[in-house]
């Protein structure tokens, strides 16, 4: 993704991060391709589960997408927090990108879950703690994105989204405890100890988790890059528009040059308050 060539005569305030955005895309893209081959090899060669058969291999997609969707919300929440603290648009772009990429993985997770569930437990959907929490996360993502699209004004959108992202970030673990306490059928395979996976599945599993992280980071980098390019394009449009408008104003007799120099409007009496 190359940045479009800029008109040398138009003054721009280019984001200092632009270069590093593109670099992040390249690096993560390379990592992704490198991993992809390894990942594919691992998944194909991994042994089939004795009980579940080869459908169990969907685990290598389902769990990484779950990881990525939680990563995504983490990025969204932290990005929002940093935005509120520093008031820098870059953090808001990061938060927004985290949400867009995260909701993608979350959707994949919710789609692959039932496929696996149907194949192994015979039900399309169960109100199992982890599935339920992921579903709730999905709804929080959606609400976050809808909030962004229905709010007007970029500063207000960024602020509202940041606050909601933080609330959501706390809601997710709270949800988890709530569901865990009060159950739902705990059908989900218990968490990751070496032995819970069959023999020979440990390594492919690890690789697939890493794959999930790398895929997430690459898509995130792409999305952030796109967002900063859009912001730069908007900035250039505004500046060239302003430069054009500056012309006629100078024709008004008796005016100073537009917008330059402080005009002091002092009180004659000079009394302090």
């Amino acid at each position, binding site marked *: 993704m190359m940045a479009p060539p800029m008109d040398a005569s138009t003054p721009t305030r280019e984001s200092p991060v632009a270069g590093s955005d593109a670099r992040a895309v390249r690096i993560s893209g390379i990592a992704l391709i490198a991993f992809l081959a390894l990942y594919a090899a691992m998944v194909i060669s991994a042994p089939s589960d004795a009980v579940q058969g080869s459908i169990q291999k969907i685990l290598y997609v389902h769990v990484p997408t779950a990881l990525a969707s939680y990563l995504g919300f983490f990025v969204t929440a932290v990005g929002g927090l940093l935005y*509120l603290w520093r008031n820098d648009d870059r953090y808001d772009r990061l938060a927004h990108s985290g949400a867009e990429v995260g909701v993608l993985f979350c959707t994949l997770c919710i789609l692959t879950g039932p496929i696996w569930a149907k194949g192994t437990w015979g039900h399309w959907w169960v109100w199992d703690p982890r599935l339920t929490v992921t579903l*709730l996360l999905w*709804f*929080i993502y*959606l*609400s976050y994105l*809808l*909030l962004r699209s*229905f*709010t*007007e004004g970029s500063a*207000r959108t960024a*602020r*509202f989204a*940041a*606050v*909601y992202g*933080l*609330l*959501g970030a*706390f*809601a997710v673990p*709270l*949800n988890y*405890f*709530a*569901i865990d*306490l*009060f159950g739902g059928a705990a059908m989900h395979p218990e968490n990751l100890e070496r032995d819970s996976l069959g023999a020979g599945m440990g390594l492919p599993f690890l690789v697939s988790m890493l794959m999930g992280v790398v895929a997430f980071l690459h898509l995130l980098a792409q999305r952030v890059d796109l967002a900063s390019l859009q912001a730069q394009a908007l900035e250039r449009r505004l500046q060239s528009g302003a430069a054009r408008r500056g012309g006629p104003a100078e024709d008004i007799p008796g005016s100073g040059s537009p917008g330059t120099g402080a005009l002091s409007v002092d009180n004659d009496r000079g009394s302090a308050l």
Partner: protein
Amino acid sequence: MNVLLAILWKDLLIEVRSRDRVTAMLVFSLLVVIVFHFALPGSNPEQQAANAPGLLWVAYVFSALLGLGRAFSLELENEALSGLARAPTDRGWVFLGKAAASFLILGVVQAVTAVAFALAFDVDLSAVALPLAGIVALGSLGICSVGTLAAAVAVRTRFREVMLPLLLLPLLWPVISGAVRATAQLVGGSDVEFEAIQLLIVTDGIYLVLSFIGFDFVLDE
């Protein structure tokens, strides 16, 4: 603190004069009771008693949505919200004032609804009235705290009536599940398990603090 009381006074005064929030919420939640009663055919009393707590809280949440939305739509007239934003005070107090007013108004509606529910579903609540009030208060605290923040956000978006439930409901899950469980146990005659209370208290605390702090950013223009 004075600001909190000032806003509480103002909201309650307006409510006492116009009574529109309370009326709307009450009518709505009573309708919900009736609709539920018809929607769930009169099976055995055991099943009715099992469903009742959950349905009661659904009615509570829906009427809370109405009330919270109204709390801020009345601030939109004449841009009163900007007037509040300009006050030289920590905006968290503005938040607490609005939340407290919503809490009290909701409380009135909840009490009446509980009575209606007891009648419609033939459940005896009088024995557990006091502990039930406690559970309901804990639940309402969570609903009104994060709900006030969400309403302040929603009221300045393009589809504010739709936005509020969208924003609030996913966040309320821990509150509702804890409250329903505790209510069910009370109604069922057993003791309320500590975990439910714990969940409610922790959630309420977190939501109160986050909303108090977040309100400052939300009220910014």
